[in-house]
């Protein structure tokens, strides 16, 4: 009997080695919204449990999901860069270059649509795009690699969280829940504006006043607290290779329109714009100061020359830097298991 108990303990110790826990927590996870936002709406078929989040976290960093076995979600979405990659356009499996700049993954729980033209409505469906795209992870649509489906941790967690073996149903749901858990609402701006526990510097304050002024109208689209309105606009970028929203809507009036990106953590996510055409935040400010690069009928008429002084531009930069959430980008719960 003692031998059996000892054997059981040894077996448990062996199977629970490494930092990966044997069991996962099925209790529902809560969103930490810092009192700034309401709880987001959740899909009925994807319980937001700690177990599903941890499963998604493990998958997010797993290169075995990709066609070359070397590319994971994190290859283009690194925590230290607010889940971007610092590249103009993403580099996928086998070095395939993508055609869009990698977006941040923070605060996607509140996003009503995904992709820059908004053609995907749920985080669950969105997961299929990078997993299967030839220029991204180049995964097989036919089946997941055996190395994944036979992984004992995946087997256990998948059955526990979703009552089925690891398959695409589980993968996209777990990844969606991990991404939903990526919340960044703890910047200096938040502590000044929403919690009044800190104050802006003079430069930040001037920048904030310009940003929300009736002349600049930045908050019309980059609307706090998420600093996006999830709308689609042509802001007058000269690049014309990508048709933007027109690809999804088939309307000529949507040509060159792209979804408003959030400005949270913006200083950590260069280069900027949908193809990463602009390297520095200062250049982005100058772009808006000039009223865009090109002027087309569908260009949003709020993008007008601003005639900002050098000091105005420095103040705007200081304000934008106040949107960086240093706690979020160092959160160890979002690093690999």
């Amino acid at each position, binding site marked *: 009997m003692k031998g059996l108990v000892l054997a059981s303990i040894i077996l448990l110790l062996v199977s629970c080695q490494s930092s990966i826990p044997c069991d996962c927590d099925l209790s529902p996870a809560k969103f930490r919204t810092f009192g700034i936002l309401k709880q987001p709406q959740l899909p009925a078929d994807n319980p937001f449990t700690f177990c599903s989040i941890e499963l998604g976290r493990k998958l997010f960093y797993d290169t075995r999901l990709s066609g070359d076995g070397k590319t994971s979600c994190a290859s283009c979405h690194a925590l230290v860069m607010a889940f971007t990659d610092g590249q103009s356009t993403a580099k996928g499996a086998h070095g395939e270059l993508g055609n869009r700049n990698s977006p941040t993954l923070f605060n996607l729980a509140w996003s009503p649509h995904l992709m820059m*033209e908004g053609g*995907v409505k749920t985080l669950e469906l969105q997961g*299929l795009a990078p997993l299967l795209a030839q220029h991204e992870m180049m995964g097989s649509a036919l089946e997941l690699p055996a190395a994944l489906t036979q992984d004992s941790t995946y087997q256990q967690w998948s059955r526990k969280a979703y009552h089925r073996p690891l398959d695409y149903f589980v993968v996209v749901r777990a990844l969606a829940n991990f991404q939903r858990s990526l919340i960044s609402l703890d910047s200096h701006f938040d502590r000044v504006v929403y919690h009044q526990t800190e104050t802006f510097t003079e430069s930040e304050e001037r920048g904030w006043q310009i940003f929300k002024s009736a002349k600049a109208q930045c908050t019309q689209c980059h609307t706090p607290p998420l600093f996006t309105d999830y709308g689609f606009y042509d802001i007058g970028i000269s690049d014309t290779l990508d048709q933007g929203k027109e*690809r*999804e809507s088939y309307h000529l009036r949507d040509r060159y329109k792209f979804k408003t990106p959030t400005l949270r953590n913006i200083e950590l996510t260069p280069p900027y714009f949908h193809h990463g055409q602009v390297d520095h935040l200062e250049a982005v400010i100058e772009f808006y100061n000039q009223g865009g690069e090109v002027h087309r009928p569908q260009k949003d008429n709020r993008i007008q020359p601003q005639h900002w002084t050098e000091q105005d531009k420095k103040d705007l930069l200081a304000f934008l830097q106040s949107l960086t959430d240093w706690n979020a980008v160092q959160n160890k719960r979002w690093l690999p298991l």
Partner: protein
Amino acid sequence: MGACAMMLVLTQCSACKEPQEPEGNTDATYIVHWITKYGNDDLIQGQTYRDAFNRRLLLEDLRGYISQVALIDENDSSIVLKDFALMNWFADPTISTAAQPAKIKALRFSLGIPAVYNTSVDPTTYPNAHPLSVAGAAGMFWTWNTGYIFYQLNGKCDLSGSENQPLIDPIAYHCGDDTLFRTITLDIADVTVKAGDAYQFNILFDAQKCFWNDQDTMDLDVDYLTHTSGNLPLALRAMDLYQSAFSIP
């Protein structure tokens, strides 16, 4: 009295006799087979054919979703053979099912996926064997803009007009959007299919009509590429031509 009682028992037994199961198979087997051609030639993957301008073209991939495949009986009722199928038009496409006997007067099927399934249902929720699943779709699903590719034709042609040059100019019609959904009804001479019978209905799919018919002609010099987005007008034309390729032989 004894005889009366016996008669009553016999009568009651007869009246209470349980209905007998009819002998043999009560269903009929319905088979729908698509005869695939390119003009007068058999349709073969990798075969070289001619376009409307006598230029050489090579067909590499020719697939499409069909849905709500049904037979229409004399009462206008539908006998559904298949809800969804991904058809490889190079691969002897046939669908069959067993159903009640009927007098059939038409065949009906749709090209594409009905709107309610096209973008609203997550493909990961289907089992792998289902044609709308991630595996079953085999690439016939757009992930960047949720929805299925209804019809996909990939190939190459030679725009030089030479008979010796390699076929290098691409042809790609990838059509899929709710506005491209089409339903085809093909009338036939009434066919009575009896219980236990197996009856095959043939439909002609002439791939040549994917390039030209009486109403429209694809000029592969300019009409060679659509992913629907970016070139919806060409996708609409391609879908109209594709629809015209189906007829009763």
